[in-house]
């Protein structure tokens, strides 16, 4: 009987470890396609968290489900009066503490790596804020252009100072660190591209320097991540990670185009509200003037 129990336990532990490992590997696919250098370590961290999480979940659930299946009451008598077990209680206090230290240490490590890769916000002159960070890493690269990102209710626009180009699309070069200067003209917005795994709130009246390195050519979606009012959901923009040639070509072309007010979904919906079955006539903040862009 004892050997049977030990075998059973061993099988259970084996199943947990195998399943957790498989889940951890699977976890990479639950995230959108990685398109920035920062996305890779985040993927590793998530995989690690899923593996550990699955071990904890299956272990505890295993005991719970086993009890539910095999400890059903057959009569109304009481079970043995086990009030506790000091060793066991110390074990399940110490193990989580160690696990937590491990997770925090690993997360810190990943955070440092992202820092070196360049996704750290270089926030400056802000309350509760340490002074501007020294620029780290990628100093051997040629200095990259600082692109101004202007968020307002409810549009994104991107300004390239060198060519004096403004666009509703963000074009960036693959495998080069990107410097963004995030600005908001009204409320708190958030810069979020799921494929890059990066996110930064944009506090009005501050310029937040933000750096990351895209590494996969393609088209991605930028979304406002901090609730910004009525037309919040419409505040999106396309992000293009281009080859250097495509990028230069696009920038040169854009510079030749005349400046016109951009088409703005919030503005068009504000002037022509959709006829939904449930409607309010509540006052809303009118969308700000759409940015003037080199179409």
């Amino acid at each position: 009987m004892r050997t049977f129990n030990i075998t059973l336990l061993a099988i259970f532990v084996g199943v947990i470890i195998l399943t957790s490992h498989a889940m951890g590997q699977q976890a990479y696919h639950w995230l959108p396609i990685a398109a920035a250098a920062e996305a890779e370590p985040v993927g590793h961290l998530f995989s690690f968290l899923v593996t550990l999480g699955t071990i904890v979940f299956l272990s505890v659930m295993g005991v719970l489900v086993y009890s539910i299946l095999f400890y059903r009451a057959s009569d109304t008598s009481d079970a043995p009066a086990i009030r506790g077990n000091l060793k066991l209680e110390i074990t399940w206090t110490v193990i989580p503490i160690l696990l937590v230290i491990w997770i925090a240490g690993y997360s810190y490590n990943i955070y440092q790596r992202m820092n070196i890769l360049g996704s750290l916000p270089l926030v400056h002159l802000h309350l509760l804020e340490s002074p501007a960070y020294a620029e780290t890493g990628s100093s051997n690269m040629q200095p990259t252009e600082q692109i101004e990102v202007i968020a307002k209710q409810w549009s994104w626009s991107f300004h390239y100072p060198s060519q004096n180009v403004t666009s509703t699309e963000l074009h960036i070069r693959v495998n080069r660190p990107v410097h963004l200067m995030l600005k908001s003209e009204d409320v708190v917005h958030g810069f979020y591209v799921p494929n890059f795994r990066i996110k930064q709130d944009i506090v009005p009246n501050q310029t937040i320097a933000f750096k990351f390195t895209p590494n996969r050519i393609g088209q991605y979606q930028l979304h406002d991540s901090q609730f910004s009012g009525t037309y919040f959901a419409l505040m999106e923009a396309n992000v293009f990670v281009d080859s250097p040639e495509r990028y230069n070509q696009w920038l040169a072309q854009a510079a030749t185009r005349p400046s016109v007010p951009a088409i703005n979904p919030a503005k068009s919906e504000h002037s022509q509200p959709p006829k939904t079955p449930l409607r309010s006539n509540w006052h809303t903040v009118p969308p700000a003037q759409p940015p003037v862009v080199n179409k």
Partner: protein
Amino acid sequence: MTNISIKSASEPEQTDWKRYFSFSTDHKVIGVQYLVTAFIFFLFGGLFAMIIRAELLTPQLDVVNRSLYNGLFTMHGTIMIFLWIFPANVGLANYLVPLMIGARETAFPVLNAIAFWLIPVVGILLLFSFFLPSGTAQAGWWSYPPVSIQNPSGHLINGEFIWLLAVTISGVSSIMGGVNLVTTIVRMRAPGMTFFRMPVYVWTTLSAQLLQLFCLPALTGAAILLLFDLSLGTDFFSPFKQGDPMIYQHLFWFYSHPAVYVMALPAFGVFSEVIPAFARKPLFGYKTVAVSSLLISGISTLVWAHHMFASATPNWMRMLFMATSMLVAVPTGIKVFAWTATVWRGKLHFKTPMLFALGGVAMFLFAGITGVMLAAVPFDIHVNNTHFVVGHFHYVVFNTVSMAIYAGIYYWFPKITGRMYSEGWGKLHFWLTFIGANLNFFPMHPLGLQGMVRRIASYDPQYTGWNIVASLGAFLLGMSTLPFIANMVSSWLRGRKAPNNPWNATGLEWTTSSPPPLENFEEIPTVTLEPYSYGESHRLTTDPSSI
């Protein structure tokens, strides 16, 4: 107060219900008033949630317009927190704490009654704001400036104004309730009821109410400052003048993260009562479970900035708050392991309260794991403000806390009403709720991982699949309240008479009659034993045939 007579317990039953509509200072009446009022607001909050989920059934905007959508999710969050979970927990605590510690009443009965009657005022204010020309508040329950102080209507009385008023009144009510409960627990315990003889439910209530007293005033302070900015034109949080919107975020989360523990701790208390009773075993590691409640309270006052990992927070703050946030997992883990060990080698009876408790524990385990994930800064930066957070949060507040409130209502229903509920309807209610809740809230995790931002009324078509599942779950969850209501109403009216101790449970509340007499106990008991003396020879056994 002094001329309460013992006779009043046997007053004719016809007039009995009227006291629930009166300004009563009896903690048991107040408890029921809280629970019923909270449940009515829960239905409103749930209705709003179903409209939100109906909108999210398809990527396009096709059910409500955007300002109404924003108003609905603001009201959904506000009502569920301030008018469902808080008052439902305080209601249960009001009913149970004096009975559990062997007191005849609470410390400040009049204050307690006033605290309750402020709750309907809060609810009426919030619901009334739907009819204002400005509409309801639409800045979400966080109400971050500058969005919250934009006031496009220009009216002095606007939705945000009403919202701030409601939150402040709710805060006053919570502080009154907190002072009353903490004083009751510390000062009114029966002879022999030492701290380490108190049931864990009393411990968790004490821990939760201490948190309310210590942290809630920060929200009140923030609300006052925001009201000044909104209505009097000051610039505390105005970024374009001298102010700073980040200060609001800090004040808000200084309270509003501990608020989650204010909601969750009493749920842990309910699990700690229900699971031993239906496993017929003492709570495993009673003292560590009891003390871990206070630890949770303590640590949770130092974790607030994890809501601001993607805000303009400096590195040291992100790392510090990552560490403290993960640390909360230790005392909460202790509780989960203790419940699991209690079930192990028990003699399990799967009555409705036990189903809700075990379902709640299982889903809380999941919520705890995603919680630790969210504390990891690099991962949080990706999923912050996405549906992943919404999913995690609802696994805590619905799948754990609301399940626990249901477990508590079923468990103490015989005590409160003197009637048995219908087990069949109860089980149907459990399965509908359990399936509905998982269908509703699980899909939010993959959606968030894929990058679906929260609070959007329309979304990219790539997210459609999981959203349909979530919406169907929400509608099922809405339906699941019907058997509950039917069960409660019909059982209270004509359910089988309940014995004093239908679950053959330990705890002082089971030693008095069902429902208890006006002054709770014929004689104030003297306590000589630790709680949860299941399986021990000297434990109080009133009816071995019950359960």
